[in-house]
């Protein structure tokens, strides 16, 4: 291709010209980090080497600010026998029984989704799906927890529709059912939406793939899309610094995804795995080729020779440092033994996937790269992949934390509805509020059916999949359940408890469908780590999550950290999103949230207290955030889960719905509307009606049981000392709270379903 007059910065040149000024600061490399690079190399880095260190040592790739805190997830990890691959790999892998394993992970694509909502969200899905594929698994579903600014804000109307179309556009085109997520609005996310995406995949235990380049002489193959100038903002600084007169062509401001290419890449990889043709594989995500080559080499025999000029380009004017930093989507890198190359290429050809041998594994302990014969990179890959900087960032409890927690939303501070009429109005206002309203407008843009194994999806407490690839139908059989949850308001009030409450809710959601919660993935969305108060929130959240995972016996298998979520000095609410994976041995036993049968008994399981700190009610009615989040009793959460799981296994439960945002009445209303049946509700006499209806106390669920099962179920609760009280019966076509108010289902449904179409339709 066209040789541009660009002067390559070779190792030789770097050695001869130690004095050359390098624009490391513009690449985000600190003075001491640059000094360390020179010390490691014993010379100044070449421009390509500097590019590699800058991306590999960036916050995003090196976790330099979070490492010391994330360590707890390992140190405090519960002893379990089902964890096949823990944190550190592309995604964790869990043994789900038989010869099957499941891999799942959540990731953020927040900033790109703000800049270009459609492509940002789309490439976010593409990235996490490649992580799952890299483990050797077939991706089988996605979930998408989302956070936006106020629902009526102009910018939200730019961002939300694009994000939703992007997630649907990419996920649907991959043939991956979308089985869950969240849509939450809060002013703290204006200018800073959160777009997290979780993907899950299934594989044979015996076929787990790891990202390492083993075996000197094995070939390094780059396959998938051509490399373009995507996401190399930084590198162009470098380029222009080393350029002569003629400039490179303009570089893209955003990455555009090609879901068709990724779909083909998935099928291509799965055929390659099936014939056991790779010894190691890595996806190209952040830091593209820099990351793939260094991590493969560092984890393997230790050395690799790469002929960078062999990489297929989309833009011939790209220079080495740009190629190394490019984040072009839909690319993979495999390590293949020479005798298996022909089959590997045959399969790529079958799927019209471009594949190129660009290097060889060596035992030199060095990662060497050449550009048209000249050596431009010669480094120890471990110094890039494992020996990046680690910061003990200072942190301290915010000065305002005490006053925030002191601002308790009690009846003296916030006026509460008293009369039945006031309560009725509050119910209608709450259920129509954007966070609690029906999300059908969003969910209809997602395919939740494709692959034909979706047992539960939107509108249920967790998504559920049948694991029978091949799909031996009718038969229930082994399945998995997934839920994501997170509450920024709770976490702002108390980061330690807030993170635990996120775990507790996802855990409860999974158990409510009858699945046994096994393992965790988390996406930690926070402000700037350079702000000691944000760093304190982060430290507390990690400590809380690690402690709770230990107590619930659900290890963190992997996750993602997203810092710098702030506009100016204003950080978002600390928002840890927790995804919980559960297993159910017979999906035919799943529990739905809908009240389907007239005359069945409604039971409230768990204890209700006067808890409104960070509640949806305080938010919607008073725009208030203060006090403490609901108390959390993890032992109680475990007992509740056991009850819900046993209830489903023994066929006692007709319906179950976890209580969370909006409290008891929100859960009952959702279950009535989904089942098309009303309910007659009698509130526990010892509770104030408002508290009974709207409190967000944790560790609760509402269930529907046939009359014949009521005693067996309540006995089971009593046996575990978990409070259970009969609160009504499924009946009629209105939501009738005795002695307080009644709302016809039609009116309730109108309020619930009207909001999103009005806002975004």
């Amino acid at each position, binding site marked *: 291709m066209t040789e541009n007059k660009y002067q390559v910065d070779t190792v030789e040149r770097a050695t001869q010209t130690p004095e050359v000024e390098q624009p490391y600061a513009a690449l985000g490399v600190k003075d001491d980090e640059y000094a360390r690079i020179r010390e490691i190399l014993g010379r100044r880095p070449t421009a390509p080497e500097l590019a590699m260190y800058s991306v590999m040592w960036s916050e995003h790739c090196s976790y330099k600010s979070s490492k010391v805190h994330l360590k707890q997830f390992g140190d405090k990890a519960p002893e379990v026998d089902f964890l096949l691959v823990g944190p550190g790999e592309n995604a964790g892998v869990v043994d789900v029984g038989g010869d099957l394993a499941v891999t799942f992970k959540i990731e953020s694509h927040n900033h790109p989704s703000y800049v270009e909502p459609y492509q940002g969200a789309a490439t976010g899905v593409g990235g996490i799906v490649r992580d799952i594929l890299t483990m050797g698994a077939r991706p089988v579903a996605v979930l998408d927890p989302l956070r936006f600014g106020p629902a009526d804000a102009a910018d939200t109307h730019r961002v939300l529709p694009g994000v939703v*179309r992007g997630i*649907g*556009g990419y996920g*649907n*085109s*991959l*043939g991956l059912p979308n089985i869950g997520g969240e849509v939450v609005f809060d002013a703290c996310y204006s200018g800073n939406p959160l777009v997290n995406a979780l993907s899950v995949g299934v594989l044979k235990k015996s076929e787990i793939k790891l990202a390492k380049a083993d075996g000197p002489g094995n070939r390094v193959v780059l396959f998938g899309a051509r490399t373009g100038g995507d996401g190399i903002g930084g590198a162009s600084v470098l380029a222009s610094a080393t350029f002569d007169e003629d400039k490179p062509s303009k570089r893209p401001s955003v990455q555009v995804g*090609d*879901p*068709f290419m990724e*779909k*083909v890449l998935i099928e291509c990889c799965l055929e390659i795995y099936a014939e056991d043709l790779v010894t190691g594989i890595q996806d190209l995500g952040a830091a593209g080729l820099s990351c793939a080559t260094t991590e493969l080499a560092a984890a393997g025999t230790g050395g690799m020779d790469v002929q960078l000029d062999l990489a297929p380009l989309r833009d011939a004017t790209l220079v080495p440092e740009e190629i190394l930093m490019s984040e072009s989507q839909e690319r993979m890198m495999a390590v293949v033994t020479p005798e298996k190359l022909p089959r590997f290429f045959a399969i790529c050809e*079958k*799927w*019209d996937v471009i594949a190129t041998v660009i290097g060889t594994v060596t035992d030199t302990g060095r990662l060497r790269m050449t550009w048209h014969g000249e050596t431009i990179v010669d480094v120890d890959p471990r110094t890039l992949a494992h020996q990046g900087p680690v910061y003990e960032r200072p942190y301290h409890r915010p000065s305002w934390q005490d006053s925030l927690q002191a601002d308790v939303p009690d009846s003296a501070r916030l006026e509460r509805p008293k009369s039945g009429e006031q309560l009725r109005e509050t119910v209608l206002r709450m259920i129509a509020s954007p966070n609690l309203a029906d999300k059908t407008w969003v*969910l*209809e*843009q*997602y*395919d*939740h*059916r*494709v*692959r*034909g*194994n*979706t*047992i539960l999806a939107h509108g249920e407490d967790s998504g559920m999949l*049948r694991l029978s690839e091949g*799909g031996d*139908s*009718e038969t*229930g059989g082994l399945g998995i359940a997934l839920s994501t949850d997170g509450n920024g308001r709770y976490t702002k009030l108390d980061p330690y408890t807030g993170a635990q409450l996120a775990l507790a809710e996802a855990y409860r959601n999974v158990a409510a469908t009858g699945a046994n919660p096994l393992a965790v993935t988390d996406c930690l969305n926070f402000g700037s780590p350079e702000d000691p108060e944000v760093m304190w929130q982060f430290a507390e959240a990690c400590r809380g999550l690690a402690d709770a995972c230990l107590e619930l016996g659900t290890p963190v298998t992997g996750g993602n950290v997203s810092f710098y979520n702030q506009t100016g000095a204003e950080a978002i609410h600390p928002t840890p999103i927790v995804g919980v994976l559960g297993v159910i041995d017979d*999906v*035919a036993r799943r529990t*739905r949230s*809908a009240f*389907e049968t007239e005359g069945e008994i409604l039971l409230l399981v768990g204890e209700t207290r006067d808890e409104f700190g960070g509640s949806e009610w305080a938010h919607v009615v008073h725009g208030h955030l203060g006090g403490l989040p609901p108390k959390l009793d993890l032992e109680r959460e475990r007992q509740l889960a056991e009850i819900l799981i046993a209830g489903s296994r023994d066929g006692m439960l007709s319906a179950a719905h976890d209580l969370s945002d909006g409290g008891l009445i929100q859960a009952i209303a959702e279950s009535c509307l989904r*089942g*098309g049946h009303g309910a007659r509700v009698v509130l526990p006499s010892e509770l104030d009606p408002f508290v009974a209806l709207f409190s967000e106390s944790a560790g609760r669920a509402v269930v529907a049981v046939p009359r014949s099962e009521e005693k067996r179920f309540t006995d089971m609760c009593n046996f575990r000392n978990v409070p259970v009280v009969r609160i009504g019966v499924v009946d009629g076509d209105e939501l009738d709270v005795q002695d307080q108010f009644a709302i016809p289902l039609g009116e309730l449904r109108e309020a619930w379903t009207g909001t999103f179409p009005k806002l975004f339709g």
Partner: protein
Amino acid sequence: MSVRIGVVTFPGTQDDTDALRAARVVGAEPVALWHRDPSLHGVDAVILPGGFSYGDYLRAGAIARFSPVMEAVIAAAREGLPVLGICNGFQILCESHLLPGALIRNAGTLFVNRDVKLRVESTSTAWTSDYSVGQQIVIPIKNGEGKFAADEKTLDELEAEGRVIARYLDNPNGSARDIAGIANAAGNVVGLMPHPEHAIEELTGPYPGPATDGLPFFTSLLKQLVNA
């Protein structure tokens, strides 16, 4: 001998596993067909499943139509081989001129995944004989380009010849005359925007149901082939 139903996979096809499962569920032998392979391997019927062949980037189905397997399908269809095109498959059949009209962007412009009510209009096709005329069924749709469009003359012909096989009761995408599916004159080729292969099991079909209203599309075929 069991009936062999071929399901074509193009690059970007998504619902092939579902169509293969549907064939299995009704007791037929599912046969996977590949877009580059011009042979139909002696199957008794072909399903063109849903998805996004070639990304649907140019027009849904526009590029898939030119694949080697389609030459074989087009020829065999003209000879009377039963062919069912679902969603993207329907779009491919129109692009191939095996069926009239075309499918364009939904009236609302957005992708819509919803369980919709259909009224069966014709049972005199290879794929609908197990229904009764006027029967109301629930089948999921999931598409962005599902709006059936054709000139008035073509639409009148379709109506006159009883080739509209199903209509939406509550038109989700602005399709002309609420058309959800049509057949060719001989009745062996049927195109349908909704997904019957997603309505064949109690566990995974439409909720609250009925969950298995899609089965007769496949049982119709079996009966016809066995009696033939």
